[in-house]
């Protein structure tokens, strides 16, 4: 099976690659549209600032390609946020796969949220074998609101979408590659879809 991690210069690609390796997969890192299109599974990671990341996607011409992909796609952290309609971070327009807005946490809580929090109301085969209230590692200042695509929720200041799904597109706000054995299970579930 061909797993491709999109390598557009704004990702923790190494950690995601290593996590796949630990599960027995050998993903390719690429920003080549042909390689990405030919993959069986595509992982779309991202850390950093939304507007910078979106600019890097545009430079590689990936902003048009990603929303048209037909195979299972998993956006992680900023990757998930870029799949949304728009984000308040740098007032950036997203790829529009998930029809939801990404907003900044209010200052009534510490920002960024950094650490382990639970995922609730799990509604997807992505979470097979994962119990409700499993702990995941999260680091983020912006969140996707609850919406029709929500398949997991997390509570920080308010309840928000910690995972989204629409058709072949999945997005997780947490870092499965850094979330111990449960995180690895979620990554495995995706790779086995």
């Amino acid at each position, binding site marked *: 099976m061909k797993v491709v991690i999109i390598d557009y210069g704004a990702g923790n690609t190494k950690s995601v690659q290593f*996590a796949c390796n*630990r599960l027995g997969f050998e993903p390719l890192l690429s920003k080549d549209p042909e390689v990405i299109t030919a993959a069986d599974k595509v992982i779309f990671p991202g850390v*950093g*600032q939304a507007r910078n990341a979106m600019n890097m996607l545009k430079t590689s011409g990936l902003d048009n390609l990603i929303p048209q992909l037909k195979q299972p796609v998993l956006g992680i952290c900023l990757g998930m946020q870029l799949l949304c309609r728009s984000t308040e971070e740098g007032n950036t327009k997203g790829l529009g796969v998930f029809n939801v807005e990404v907003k900044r946490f209010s200052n009534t809580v510490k920002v*960024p949220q*950094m*650490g382990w929090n639970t995922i609730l109301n799990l509604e997807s085969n992505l979470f097979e074998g994962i119990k409700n209230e499993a702990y995941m590692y999260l680091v983020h*200042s912006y969140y996707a609101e609850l919406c029709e695509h929500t398949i997991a929720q997390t509570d920080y200041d308010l309840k928000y979408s910690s995972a989204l799904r629409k058709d072949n597109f999945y997005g997780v706000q947490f870092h499965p590659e850094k979330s111990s054995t449960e995180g690895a299970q979620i990554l495995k579930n995706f790779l086995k879809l």
Partner: protein
Amino acid sequence: MLTKRIIPCLDIKNGRTVKGVNFINLIDAGDPVVLAKQYAEKGADELVFLDISATLEGRKTTLDMVLKVAEQVNIPFTVGGGIASVEDVDVLLRSGADKVSINSSAIKRPALINELSSKFGSQCVVVAIDAKQIDGQWIVHLAGGSVPAQLNLFDWAKEVEARGAGELLFTSMDHDGTKDGFANTALSRLSSELNIPIIASGGAGTIQHFVDTFLIGKADAALAASVFHFGEIEIKDLKENLKRNQIEVRL
């Protein structure tokens, strides 16, 4: 709920752990990768590696270590020690570190914090502050705590946040190594004056000290070295105790 984090800290020199570590059933107690895996299994929430290598050669070895830790360990980790430029951070993050911690270099050139947070995002920029009380004032120190800077802890902490740090690691030099508890008064003031997470460091000796630093010091995370390395406190036992004190932890 977001949980409070427990963070073991490992001192690294030339790619090896420096301080003695007394785990049972360890084949090589000097191998940071073996130790990191062990801590991840024992329930540590994150790890911090502090590189105290003095030579360039030693730093290169540490970079190999970072890559191996990223390969084998499935919890987040921070690397600190001797980081002074965007390039230093770039190579560490590319090797799989999740966060970097800067200290003296940020005092010498505060704009480094801005540069790092705008290039890599605040989430991976931890600023470490060492401070001790002199005539009733908390004074920041640099170069491993050996040189006082003309900076007040609370002023510097606020500046660090404004410049884009994602997290603050505060070590009280007055408490470090005493095993007499964390600097909870200063910690609680930092926590109320800042809106980024605060890691408490320096002074851990008993489980009650951790309870106090979360309840009184309002810390978001607590870092310790020897109490974990020498098995004086088991992480699982610690977390069960925290939970009994209504402190949210990952168990």
